[in-house]
């Protein structure tokens, strides 16, 4: 299998196209046009990336889980749990050195996300609960607990700041957009490559695909189907937790109730739109992030010719169009949503 699958080429091509337009806007008279600045200015691209990161992480989370045959609509809840846990960890370690405290909080986000993943795994594997219901349980649990336990007086002091990469960040346009970011952003972009390689080029990935497509076949080759599924739902939870950690520790710096605001669901859409591939998810997340950025840019530029409500609708309209299959056929893992029972298991 070649590294650049079709989805990967489309996604990377899209990113390059946007960067190219930004360069043109920056260095040619195109930049004098208000609309060009709104659509392709550096600030639009920066905002796109910031909006896309939690979606990328959420979609990767979904891919890990669903590729192994477990539906994960609970990403929203795992994200929220990760965000809340990160906040609690950060606000209780304010007196630690900043980076140590932030690093610790990220670990807590990952850990709590992983636990939520394991809970989803246990409900849907051990107790064979309908996976949609189990996911809903996760969402309601996270929303309820984080709201109940939230101490409104607590404050997190400090958040991740940008780490410009020497030399690379000096490149015009590309530097400020891609190489002058805080650490979780870099990590998320690297994870796209890591997950891509892990799924398509490693033993674990081959087995994950087999378990998600035809678990009985995997079982007859001596692969422990349910153990792999537990492992993957845990990884999935960790990535969703990291997305939550990103919101609190890198993007906002504080926790708000319900702060994930549907990002988990949009991640799910990005995963489907990207046909359950990491690069596809990156492309889709970039697209969704871009629509959010436009909303912002329109406001900033004072564009009033288009009613604000229409612009605010854009991310959701694009999501619906994307998932409704207007952009070609996607193919979910064949065994998704079906609990697996070994043949001799009952007796």
């Amino acid at each position, binding site marked *: 299998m070649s590294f650049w699958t079709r989805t990967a080429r489309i996604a990377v091509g899209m990113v390059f196209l946007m960067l190219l337009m930004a360069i043109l806007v920056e260095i040619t008279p195109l930049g004098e046009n208000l609309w060009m600045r709104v659509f392709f200015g550096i600030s639009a691209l920066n905002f796109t990336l910031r909006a896309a990161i939690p979606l990328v992480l959420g979609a990767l989370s979904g891919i890990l889980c669903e590729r192994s045959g477990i539906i994960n609509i609970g990403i929203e809840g795992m994200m929220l749990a990760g965000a809340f846990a990160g906040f609690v960890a950060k606000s209780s370690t304010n007196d630690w050195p900043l980076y140590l405290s932030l690093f610790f909080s990220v670990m807590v986000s990952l850990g709590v996300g992983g636990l939520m993943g394991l809970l989803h795994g246990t409900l849907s594997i051990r107790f064979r609960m309908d996976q949609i219901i189990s996911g809903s349980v996760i969402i309601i649990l996270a929303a309820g607990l984080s709201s109940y336990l939230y101490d409104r007086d607590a404050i997190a002091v400090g958040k991740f700041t940008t780490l410009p990469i020497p030399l690379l960040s000096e490149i015009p346009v590309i530097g400020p957009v891609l190489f002058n970011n805080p650490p979780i952003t870099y990590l998320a972009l690297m994870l796209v490559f890591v997950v891509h390689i892990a799924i398509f*080029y490693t033993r674990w990935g081959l087995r994950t*695909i087999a378990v998600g497509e035809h678990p009985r076949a995997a079982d007859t080759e001596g692969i422990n189907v349910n153990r792999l599924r537990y492992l993957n739902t845990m990884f999935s939870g960790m990535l969703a937790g990291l997305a939550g950690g990103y919101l609190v520790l890198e993007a906002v710096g504080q926790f708000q109730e319900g702060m994930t605001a549907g990002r988990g669901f949009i991640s799910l859409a990005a995963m489907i739109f990207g046909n359950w591939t990491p690069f596809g998810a990156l492309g889709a997340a970039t697209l969704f992030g871009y629509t959010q950025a436009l909303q912002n840019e329109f406001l900033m530029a004072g564009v009033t010719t288009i009613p604000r409500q229409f612009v605010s609708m854009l991310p959701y309209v694009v999501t619906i169009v994307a998932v409704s299959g207007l952009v070609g056929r996607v193919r979910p893992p064949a065994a998704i949503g079906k609990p697996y029972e070994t043949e001799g298991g009952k007796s």
Partner: protein
Amino acid sequence: MNTPVLEVQQISKFFPAVVANKDVNLKLQSGEILALLGENGAGKSTLMNIIYGLYQPSSGEILVRGKEVRIRSPHDAIGLGIGMVHQHFQLVPVMTVVENVMLGSESVRQGLLDRDMASQRVLDLSRDYQLEVDPCALVEDLPVGIQQRVEIIKALYRKAEILILDEPTAVLTPQEIEGLFEVMDLLRKQGKSIIFITHKLKEVLRIADRIAVLRQGELVGEVQPKEASETRLAAMMVGREVMLQVDKTDAKPGALILETHDLQAKNDLEETCLNQVNLNVHAGEIVGVAGVQGNGQTELVEVLTGLRPLEKGRIHIGGKDLTNATPRQITDQGGICHVPEDRHSFGMVTSYSVADNLVLNSYYQPPFVNGVMIQRESIEENAKSLIQKFDVRTPSAQTPVGSLSGGNQQKMIIAREISRPIQLMIAAQPTRGIDVGSIEFIHQQIVAKRDEGIAVLLVSSELDEIMALSDRIVVMYRGSIFGEVSSKDATRKKLGLLMAGVQPNSESIHESSH
């Protein structure tokens, strides 16, 4: 005598309420093909699943090369050199041949899969054992015959010395079966030991070194092919004398009942699966539709019974135009009865009682309904008489039909379908997976209906069944009727070629191996 490579001693397996195996003893010598013969439900697959570690035996021992072993999972079995080709292939459709072969025994270099090395080994194996296959092809694009080769390669890739082939011939054309037997012969010559599971008598006599017969979970005997005959083996399988031939007189075809013009339809994947199908069936004749599974037979039956929309073409039944009519219009106005291929999904409601299942196609008509009220007594009476007439073995008319054996379920469906006024019977795989006794009974019923002047369309992937019952045989290949043969001229070879898409008189016969 040498130590057997595999020996099972006193193996028993009990499921809740069912004895699947009881005190079975078997020995497999190195380099031999042992045929395990038995009807569906005789416990063959259970026994093999025990050897392959998918089930744990309730009691008894397994010895591999003279040593007692405990096989807790397929992983253990693979480690002991046991490989299994399952009846339903265990291949992941979206993965390539080499990915499927290496799954579970991956070769890894620097943490990444080593596809090149695995491909090379697949090519080596396919050369050594004449199992030609392209390692980079996606499994879902391969025909079943090739998928089976992939399964065999998979076992050999894991260095299997003992191969279990579970009903390997069920999905193959006669020519492909010959090819498989050549491969088995080659494997035997190279010292591999094979357990070959089947319920087809001809095949057993053709290839096996030794034949073990299972009946109701128990080993009833072992014979040498030389001293066995089909009749004797059938009697051992069933426990009584069986009529293997169907007694029937020549057909006396009457009026044209079913007439189709240029049928065209799409399958569930939106691909054209029926193309220009023209088919005529007359009263008083049985027309057999032969073909390898998946060449449009299923869709043809669905189109004729109103379960699948037609893209183009017309259907006339008894002179009436019933193109794209609803199933109820077709059964009521066309007088069609339908014995569906998948009896669990389309033939019955498994949780309903036998009595209720027997009126699924007529509950809305008197005497079973009066106004809006269901008439329980009529339904009971109907059940009582049909159960007796069609020899449905059930504890009572109120028993859920799902708990009956396959043969009795099928007899129930036949009873329901043909006990109303009909002019056309469509029977799809009417004897798939049922016991020889029930097969005999159902065949007699079909022939009796023909003799009453009913038109019969019989779709079956069992060539023996087609040849035994049909007066005329049409062969489907890639969605079209590829050839027609009268029953007198039909030979396995001729039909096999047609099934593989080769006209018997064309010159390309010798290139038709795949």
